[in-house]
């Protein structure tokens, strides 16, 4: 589904990603871990199409197609979804109106008619129940005054509504208490199928107890320096990142 080859990316001439290779197949869950500043969020943003980043070498193939020239919305239309580490507050746009616009614009891009209002409401009801979101919440301005946990739950609610093929969860566990973490992880697991894939970016093992990865990658200094199964996450939790840094620097 996703194939990243020798990806180099920089922002304002500062090189951040220095040769990433990664392949994610349908049905898989990948975890990307690593210390602060290793390039995890940059990788997520580059895949989603943030314009500030410049790809200087390598490529990103999504379902076999090079997506580098595509705008963020075109990638979204193809099924790429990024759950933001820091979701943006948009005063004046309600959660419901935002989702309606996002879904109908995606349908328009696929040559489909707008989703009938009845179906939309039904879908909103189902997906908000899945994430245990209060209905009143949906008429509030997007992310405005939401708690950290509400913002993250709302991200996964959007993911549930948009049904992406590839979901990248950037530090979705940060700022969540244990109950919210359980709800969010439960939501992700229910949305998981053999046809889609999830990339979980996280600092800690905690979320991976709930969303169990097939592969764990360690990102350090712009490169994936170690890959393994879920036991690698446990090892990192116990030993920290220093031993990885030592291995790389040796």
């Amino acid at each position: 589904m996703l194939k990243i080859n020798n990806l180099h990316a920089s922002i304002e001439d500062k090189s951040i990603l220095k040769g990433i290779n990664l392949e994610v197949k349908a049905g898989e869950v990948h975890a990307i871990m690593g210390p602060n500043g290793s390039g995890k969020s940059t990788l997520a943003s580059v895949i989603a199409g943030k314009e500030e980043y410049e790809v200087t070498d390598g490529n990103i193939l999504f379902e076999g197609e090079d997506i580098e020239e595509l705008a963020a919305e075109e990638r979204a239309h193809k099924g790429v979804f990024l759950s933001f580490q820091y979701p943006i507050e948009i005063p004046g746009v309600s959660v419901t109106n935002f989702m309606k616009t996002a879904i109908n614009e995606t349908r328009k891009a696929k040559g489909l008619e707008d989703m009938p209002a009845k179906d939309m409401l039904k879908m909103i009801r189902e997906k908000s129940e899945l994430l245990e979101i209060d209905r009143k919440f949906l008429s509030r301005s997007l992310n405005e005054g939401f708690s950290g946990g509400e913002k993250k739950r709302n991200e996964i609610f959007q993911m549930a509504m948009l049904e992406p093929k590839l979901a990248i969860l950037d530090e979705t566990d940060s700022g969540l208490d244990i109950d919210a973490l359980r709800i969010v992880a439960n939501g992700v697991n229910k949305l998981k199928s053999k046809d889609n894939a999830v990339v979980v970016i996280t600092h800690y093992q905690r979320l991976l107890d709930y969303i169990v990865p097939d592969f764990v990658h360690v990102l350090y200094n712009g490169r994936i320096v170690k890959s393994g199964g879920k036991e690698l996450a446990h090892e990192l939790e116990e030993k920290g990142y220093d031993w990885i840094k030592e291995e790389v620097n040796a």
Partner: protein
Amino acid sequence: MDLKEKLVSSFLALENKVDIDSYVHDVRTDAIKIFEDQGFPSKKEEAWKYTSLNSILKEDYSVFPKQENALEFKDIKKYFIHDIDTYKIVFIDGKYASHLSQTTHDGIDVCLMSSALNKPKYQLVIKNYFNKAAEKDSLTSLNTAFSCEGAYIHIPKNKIVEKPIQILHFSTGNESATMLQPRNLVVVGENSHVQILERHQSLAENPVLTNSVTEIFANKRAIVDFYKIQNDNENATLIDHTFVKQSRESFASVHTFSFGGKLIRNNLNFYQEGERIDSTLKGITIIGNKQHVDHNTLVHHIEPNCESHQDYKGIFDDSSTGVFNGKVLVNKEAQKTNAFQANNNILISDKASINTKPQLEIFADDVKCSHGCTIGQLDESAMFYMQSRGIPEKEAKALLMFAFSNNVLSSVKIPELKQRITKIIANKLGVNIGFDL
């Protein structure tokens, strides 16, 4: 002959022909003297520092345009709010168009300024109200001197006027350049309630200069909502002067939607002459190209325990320019005043600019007055967030702009008008927003 000379000599011709009433005659004669002394404002004056009329005044305007009645409703329907029942006062090239209008004398007067100025039965109201709120600056005086047509709205006390009143001024371009000077008078009696919409629309590419004056009187506990739709073509200039005098416990609001025109100058003055008055001034400006919109507001708090709310949003693209000059004056006696003013702007292009200047003059010591102005760009991170959800750039921009303007839009009390304005904005931004805000 320049425009000033032409106007002064035209005044003599006008005065010989039409005036019979001595009060109005005196008012007009005094007014033309003021204009003759002061002439058109120049950038040397503080109030006109950022708005130049020079290039506009160079046109050879016809001051008394020929009448053109060939317009049919179907041709201009789109400029009306036509999906609800309304009173309509329609003018074409400054002349009343009865076939497009729907006036009334049934308990209320929704009719013509020309009748009110000339017929004896209106003389008392004219004497009590005409030119009693208007300032004596040169452009207002110019309008006063030439005032002969416009809307006359008189609502006696205890009347809730169910139907909104639409005032529409069309210009057809049958002169190579046209100058119009409509004059409206709105008197709303005790406990009465009225909603009024006003629009100036040029139907051709020929230049039009409109110098319009509206006087509004809201008597005790009256509620007056006035909406201005300014979406004219890029050869039309509008200088609007609106003066609102309020008596105690009245509520008056003026919403100004400035989306088009070559140059728009809105002088909007509120005078609070009683206690517990509420004044609301709101506006949305969305312009591009070389368009220019200048909002010049004054709220004069004269008595204690009153409120005023000003909220102006501006979005400027291309080489467009904006001005916001908002003055709040609080007299020594006006204790417990609560005055709020906000002016927020987004510059879409590097070449667009806005000059914003809040002015607070407070002589009372127990008041709450706040003001804030911001100038910013569209939030890039919000754009990426929306795009990453599949909303294309243009739509994402539009959504942000709607969200930015929503505070002003949401206080429009006529749903059909709100819908229409939403649609005008969507058209302007080239998007089809699939929901109502």
